[in-house]
């Protein structure tokens, strides 16, 4: 029973808090109300059973608990200031949050509103991530702190400051208007993708919470697809995350070393998730004007996933897609990935020329992946000494343990 209740809480907390925020107009009040409602559920459900509509139960109880809190607070204030006459009647407080407001709008609208508020551009980027994970996904402050390798106190402060800014600067609790929706949607997708990449870049195999981040990001992606059915961008992002995540079982050795795509045991890929991802890729490419970068990256991932073996990968198509990506989202990192694809189609020499020209522009100075790619290409060409120098440079900049081990292994091979 305790497990079932836990599951209900996990699945419903985002929607419950979103509705409570709309009803009560305040993050803190809504969160306190939800905690009170959970406590009441834990006390009553074991004997009464889980209600048919747990979400409605939690919202109603939460709302009443909030009204109770406010009444107590008003009485406390009145006692302190010895003002009896002007005390708002209990009935009047109840009228602030009438019963019919609950049913007025669907929980879906509330959650969408909540997501857009948590991802508002006026909040610092890390605050957007923390607030989304906390209020929409229901992760605890401690869990989020562990995932981002900061102390719980730091993360708690980050959340407090974010909610203060929402209140003090007047960040509205609403889905943005048509004119700015596309731009704000980009911002929401970026937050979700940041959560995913944070989890995907798992360094220590023992850190389960990072896997959890990928799960939450995918959950958010699915939620967004459901809530915004007339836009294709969320499908593109969901496809990309599903396809990357599907390789989870094959990416690392038991010791936590990285296994390159080239050498992964494809039988360990999650076939069901790949199928879902592939179906989403098509939907993602349907987006209004230009395809989103996520949709194109997902299409690239799809080509990898469709290949039975690494040798069967459709590299010319991948290189072409990188070309598209460079046009819609020019970036030196994408150019670097394009060069890798080119090396698979036209050989390492043309690719090396591309990489060297990126290097010359200096935009990727300090980015260790560039010398790592140069090292690979030089190794394939047979220019050993230069390859060693490039790998050494890459190693000096690499921070993640599995990457360092990989580069060190390459150096050992060439020694």
């Amino acid at each position: 029973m305790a497990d079932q209740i836990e599951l209900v809480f996990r699945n419903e907390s985002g929607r419950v808090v979103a509705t409570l925020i709309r009803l009560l107009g305040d993050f803190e009040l809504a969160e306190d109300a939800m905690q009170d409602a959970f406590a009441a559920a834990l006390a009553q459900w074991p004997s009464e059973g889980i209600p048919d509509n747990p979400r409605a139960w939690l919202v109603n109880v939460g709302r009443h608990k909030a009204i109770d809190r406010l009444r107590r607070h008003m009485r406390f204030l009145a006692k302190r200031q010895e003002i009896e006459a002007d005390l708002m009647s209990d009935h009047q407080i109840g009228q602030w949050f009438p019963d019919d407001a609950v049913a007025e709008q669907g929980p879906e609208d509330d959650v969408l509103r909540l997501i857009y508020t948590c991802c508002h551009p006026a909040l610092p980027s890390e605050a957007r991530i923390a607030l989304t994970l906390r209020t929409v996904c229901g992760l605890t402050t401690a869990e989020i702190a562990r995932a981002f390798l900061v102390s719980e106190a730091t993360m708690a402060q980050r959340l407090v400051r974010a909610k203060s800014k929402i209140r003090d600067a007047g960040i509205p609790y609403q889905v943005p208007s048509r004119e700015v929706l596309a731009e704000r949607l980009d911002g929401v997708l970026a937050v979700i993708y940041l959560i995913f990449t944070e989890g995907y870049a798992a360094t220590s195999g023992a850190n389960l919470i990072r896997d959890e981040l990928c799960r939450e990001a995918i959950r958010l992606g699915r939620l967004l697809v459901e809530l915004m059915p007339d836009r294709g961008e969320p499908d593109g992002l969901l496809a990309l995350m599903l396809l990357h995540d599907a390789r989870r079982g094959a990416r690392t050795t038991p010791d936590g070393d990285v296994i390159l795509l080239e050498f992964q045991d494809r039988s360990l890929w999650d076939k069901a998730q790949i199928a879902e991802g592939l179906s989403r890729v098509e939907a993602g490419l349907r987006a209004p004007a230009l395809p989103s970068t996520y949709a194109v990256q997902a299409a690239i991932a799809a080509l990898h996933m469709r290949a039975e073996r690494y040798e069967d990968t459709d590299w010319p198509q991948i290189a072409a897609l990188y070309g598209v990506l460079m046009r819609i989202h020019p970036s030196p990192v994408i150019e670097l990935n394009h060069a890798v694809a080119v090396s698979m189609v036209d050989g390492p020499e043309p690719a090396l020329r591309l990489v060297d020209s990126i290097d010359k522009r200096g935009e990727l100075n300090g980015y260790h992946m560039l010398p790592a790619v140069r090292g690979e290409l030089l190794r394939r060409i047979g220019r050993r000494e230069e390859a060693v120098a490039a790998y050494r440079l890459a190693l000096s900049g690499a921070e993640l343990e599995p990457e360092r081990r990989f580069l060190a292994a390459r150096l050992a091979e060439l020694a």
Partner: protein
Amino acid sequence: MQYLLLIYENEANRQNIDRAKMGEEYGKFTKSIIESGNFKGGDALQPTTTATTVRLKDGKPVTTHGPFAETREALIGYYLIEAKDLDQATGIAARVPSAKIGSIEVRPIMVYN
């Protein structure tokens, strides 16, 4: 809610701007926010070369020439506006003529309960 819009521009660049045209745009903009009811106040400031900064040292006022800090972009004017929320306030800020070439800081006015 009330917000202060702090208008920052790179003063070195100001010579390169057609100031007459800018003045016209400001006139139109101010008129539009008065009509919409958002305008509560606003002024252009004279350049930072006219600024004087006052601090107290050992309880005695010390005045020095210049703004409180030398920054690449300098405060050149402000508006006090009434807006229903931050999105409306930033929407208005984006229409301030200097937004094309400088930065507009949007700061909510302190409310005391």
